[in-house]
């Protein structure tokens, strides 16, 4: 008789702790999802130099430039893409958005071009500030940065 309630109690205890644990886990999971979503949703914009004649591009045109499929903007002028460093979240998001390719697929794509002797991947820099500095060395340059990093030195290219 006396053992029955105690066993219920211990059961309840377990229930209590596991519920708390679930809640904690759920909160963590939600947080993780938020972080991931925030990373993906980080507003990425394609930029050129402030004095560039380029006003807008299609997703496909940007993809072709960044995957080495063309060396020119649609107007025929030279296009030189600049990359963010490998592993940067913005780089992953950028290639996903413009080409639907994963980081691994993009890497394999460039390995193909390099070892056919037909191209070299875009120059890389580690963060938005460095990208902006490098960008302004040549009006043919095109890059992508976080919307929050946009300033007068660059011009945002809306994607059609």
């Amino acid at each position, binding site marked *: 008789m006396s053992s029955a309630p105690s066993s219920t109690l211990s059961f309840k205890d377990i229930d209590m702790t596991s519920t708390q644990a679930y809640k904690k886990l759920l909160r963590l999971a939600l947080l993780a999802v938020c972080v991931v979503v925030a990373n993906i949703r980080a507003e990425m914009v394609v930029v050129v130099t402030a004095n560039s004649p380029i006003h807008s591009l299609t997703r*496909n045109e940007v993809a072709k430039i960044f995957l080495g499929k063309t*060396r020119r903007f649609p107007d025929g002028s030279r296009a030189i893409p600049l990359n963010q460093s490998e592993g940067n979240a913005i780089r992953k998001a950028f290639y996903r958005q413009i080409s639907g390719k994963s*980081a691994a697929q993009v*890497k394999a794509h460039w*390995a193909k071009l*390099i*070892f056919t*002797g037909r191209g070299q991947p875009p120059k890389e820099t580690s963060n938005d500030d460095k990208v902006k500095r490098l960008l302004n060395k040549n009006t043919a340059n095109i890059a992508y940065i976080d919307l929050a990093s946009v300033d007068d030195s660059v011009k945002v290219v809306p994607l059609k």
Partner: protein
Amino acid sequence: MNMSDKLTVTTQPPGLAAFIATACLCGTPAFALEAFDPTYTFNGFGTLGAIYSDEGKADYVSSWLLQPNGAGHTSEWHGGIDSKLGGQVNIEFSEAFSAVVQVVVQRQEDNAWTPELEWANVQYRFNDQFSLRLGRTVLPSFMVSDTRLVGYANPWIRPPQELYQLNPLTNLDGLDLAYAREFDNARNTLHLSFGQTDRDVVQNGQVRARNGLVISNTFEYKFATLRLMYMRAKLDLGIEQTDIIYGAYTSLGETLSTIPGQENNAATAMSLGTRYDIADNAVELYSAGIKLEPGNWLLMGEWGQVPETGALANVWAGYATLGYHFPTFMPFITLAEINGDTPNEPGVATTGMPASLAGEIDALNQGLNLLLFQASTAQKSITAGLRWDCYPGTAIKLQYQHIEIDDHSPGRLGNIQPDFTPGGTVNVFSAVIDFVF
């Protein structure tokens, strides 16, 4: 000695610094000269792998012509089939003028890990459409010929051998013209190559290809790529064992011609001395390929044919690969087949000959037929594989291949032992790490 060493060490950095300072001070002229300042890029690739085969009387090899032995008979597990290391230097002299040198170390036909100059060419880009390459360039027989040796760039561990071993040679010395046209969502590239190549092959053999001509056209539209290719060359293939057989027929013909009543057999023997020899024979290869990459799917297939050339029977081959890209994993499945005409060579008749001579001729006829069967490869295989991109620039691949060999041939196996029985099945398991740097 020590003193002077120290002196050199201490004097160099200021010299360098002075040089840099001068370069910085003369900023404008240095910038103007930048156009003539070549830029160098180094890239490397490699594969480290181990292959297991359950066939004890022959070896699983990466190429029947270029690899003397492999997994199976020589050792159940073999590490020297796909393993290789390559380095490539790109030099850009100007926007139009560049050069590429690629050196690859892999196990050669003599079992030695000798570095070979895979590519060495200069490229001149006349404009966006036309470019010319001179020197040693890729021999573009198939869709992924460019990256045939770069495992990382390909979905599988090695391109399906049924098709790709229709032409085991990978480069060409000569010139290569490309004409590319861009359209809205499409791009077309027409390639013309002319050249020649020499290559040492297994069994102390040599291949010599002259007057090579390759025409290929690649059309890309959105996620689809379509490629057509035609290749022609004058080919010499000398392999010790086969040359012995041809030589034996010629001397048999000479012997028989001295025996009255054997004129017909003498003529047959003489003609067999050259009938299957590959010497200045025109060899042709046709191939077609399609690759579709809608979203995360990969579907590709290729087909090729080599019409009869000397001892090589008329063969055709093809494969189809289906894969799906998860963020870091790609499972895939490949079906492949090579098939062709079954050789039928009665050889020299022995009726009415003395028993000892008849026995020798029978043995020679058997030898010739064995050679022809070996040269008429036929097999089917199914491959299930997994590519895991574990780290940027590094992929681990696992592959299981089940091969059904045709009753009359050793399939794509090499180092065939005398007691090998044609037909049957072979199971091959491969594990590799592919990397680029």
